[in-house]
């Protein structure tokens, strides 16, 4: 008994001195954990490309700032399961001294891992996941939602399509939290802009054959069929809509699509579709320069998720340098104080609910004959200013937002 008391006291004393003596950066290493989908349905839009983007951010920072401390990157596959994500996050924080976790591609993994980060007082920078829950009901002060969310993509695309005259809508919705959230956000936008929602059909996730659901959408007579799903569900829906002669009589609106989906389907099947993204590699010289470097390493052009990760990790590393510390609260305060200006975002900033606010872009997919070189897929139709792109704070359900 006596022995343990002494041991505890000694340990406590040791940890005290360690805390004060450390040169602010704990054990002189800043460790970044990339928790992403390395093998499943979203491994093209995030996956190894996400890990590559983070490594690029670290290398660029090291080359420019020559920090006195080491920066390490570790990666793991969360298999799109919440329990795996939270176990891995816990293991990283407790055992491997990881300071920050990034990406998290599905809503379930993001919600699980950000909760662990909060418990352990570490930072979570989310890029791949889509749900607005991350910055609403489940928000916390150590999490930043960086790239996009269901509100932003639904808002951009639905508004544009309604303005083009697509007034009546029918939704084809993946039957889980993400799909329902996307459908709800888009329905609100359609109604607010004078359109009408005629109905919706929920399909099991993941699905292969969508023809039955598409026939229902066809029978509804709606001008626009909104695809509130993602990945292969979306690509299969688009392909089969063409087969059944639904397009071009009725038009499709992909509410969450990535450039890798367009690449997979080809321009013939997707031409003319509207979609909203946070990033397009071919937008300007800055995005081109970075994307070409990325392409040389990964052999594919970056998705917005991958580009957003580079931006998020760079911003984090700058905050570590500015504060000379990897203390969560100090770094987070610095991140929130500084504007984000890089190839990904101009004058971006982090709100109190954890939303990184920046411009979004409404794209239209090019016709095959308009595409001049590989990955030349979009016309940027409109820049959606940061102030309009994301859910206004007045509608926030986040407890951190003072009203």
């Amino acid at each position, binding site marked *: 008994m006596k022995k343990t008391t002494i041991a505890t006291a000694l340990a406590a004393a040791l940890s005290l001195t360690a805390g004060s003596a450390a040169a602010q950066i704990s054990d002189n290493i800043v460790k970044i954990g990339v928790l992403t989908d390395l*093998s*499943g*349905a*979203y*491994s*093209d*839009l995030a996956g190894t490309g996400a890990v590559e983007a983070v490594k690029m951010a670290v290398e660029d920072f090291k080359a420019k700032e020559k920090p006195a401390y080491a920066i390490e990157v570790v990666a793991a596959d969360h298999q799109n399961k919440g329990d795996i994500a939270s176990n891995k996050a816990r293991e990283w924080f407790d055992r491997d001294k990881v300071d920050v976790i990034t990406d998290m591609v599905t809503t379930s993994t993001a919600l699980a891992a950000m909760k662990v980060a909060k418990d352990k007082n570490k930072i979570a920078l989310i890029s791949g996941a889509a749900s607005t829950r991350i910055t609403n009901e489940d928000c916390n002060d150590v999490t930043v939602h960086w790239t996009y969310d269901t509100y932003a993509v639904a808002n951009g695309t639905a508004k544009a399509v309604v303005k083009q005259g697509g007034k009546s809508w029918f939704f084809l919705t993946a*039957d889980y939290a993400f799909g329902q959230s996307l459908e709800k956000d888009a329905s609100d936008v359609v109604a607010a802009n004078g359109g009408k929602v005629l109905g919706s*059909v*929920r*399909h*099991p996730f*993941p*699905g*292969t*054959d969508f*023809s*039955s*659901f598409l*026939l*229902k959408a066809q*029978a509804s007579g709606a001008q626009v069929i909104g695809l509130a799903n993602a*990945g*292969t569900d979306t*690509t*299969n829906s688009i*392909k*089969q809509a063409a*087969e*059944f*002669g639904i397009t071009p009589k009725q038009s499709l609106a992909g509410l969450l699509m990535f450039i*890798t*989906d367009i*690449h*997979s*389907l*080809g321009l013939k*099947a997707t031409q003319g579709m509207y979609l909203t993204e946070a990033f397009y590699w071919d937008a300007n010289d800055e995005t081109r320069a970075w994307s070409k470097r990325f392409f040389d390493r990964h052999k*594919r052009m970056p998705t917005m998720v991958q580009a957003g990760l580079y931006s998020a990790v760079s911003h984090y590393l700058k905050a570590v340098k500015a504060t000379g510390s990897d203390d969560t609260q100090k770094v987070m305060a610095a991140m929130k104080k500084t504007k984000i200006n890089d190839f990904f975002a101009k004058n971006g900033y982090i709100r109190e609910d954890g939303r990184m606010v920046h411009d979004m872009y409404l794209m239209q997919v090019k016709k095959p004959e308009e595409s001049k070189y590989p990955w030349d897929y979009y016309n940027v139709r409109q820049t959606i200013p940061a102030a309009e792109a994301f859910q206004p704070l007045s509608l926030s359900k986040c407890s951190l937002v003072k009203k």
Partner: protein
Amino acid sequence: MTEIFGVPIQALLGQLMLGLVNGSFYAMLSLGLAVIFGMLNIINFAHGALYMMGAFLAWMGLTYWGISYGWALLLVPIAVGVFGMVIERTMLQWLYKLDHLYGLLLTFGLALIIEGLFRDQYGVSGLPYEIPDLLTGAFNLGFMFLPKYRAWVIFASLAVCLATWFGIEKTRLGAYLRAATENPKLTQAFGINVPLMVMLTYGFGVGLAGFAGVLAAPAFQVNPLMGSHLIIVVFAVVVIGGMGSILGSILTGLGLGVIEGLTKVFYSEASSTVVFVVMVLVLLVRPAGLFGREK
């Protein structure tokens, strides 16, 4: 317009037709599984991966070597079949005397490896395969526009299924096969090369999966995960039909496709689970499956 339970009869007929299309895929895949299980006593978990491989080979043939869809229908099943025979000779043949579990584990492992290789090479977003020009367009059936390609799927799979059933149940070669399953030692004693027959059977069974893969390529995206999405349902079909029953697996495949189609009309959220509900009900009443015989 006439309605049944609030659904216009035209919509219902349309959905039945689509159910039949999906049922055709179930039938072809479960038929291959049933043939393999019947003859080899192997629960072939690699079936979905080989189906995916069939679709990929069709895509690769077209993209790299300009092999048209028609030729792919012929060549790909042969290629997949040969690949299967190599697996049978080098790995499976050592497992026949052991418990089913060993075959299941081995083929499951193979499925993971094959899928992993394709995923590593081609990513998961999928690759496009155009419908051949001859089969584009649609038939107006009055109640729906049935794309010609879907009609072709039903026709081709029914033809292949019936030919298989005929070959196994009505020909001399089929009789040898059935004899070899029933009593391999005695059949061997009559001078029939049983190991050769077993090898050919496995090759044929997975060749059917390859054929289904080529049929699927233009209808769905060619995707490394396409097999694993389907294989569980197909196993349920085999269990419902009765393990090893040829006719059973064909009829059950088509029937369940239709039931699934109807579920999509009335309560689409349950369409992925209805097959398993049916499976539970069937197992409660007839543990050997609808067409299976108790041993």
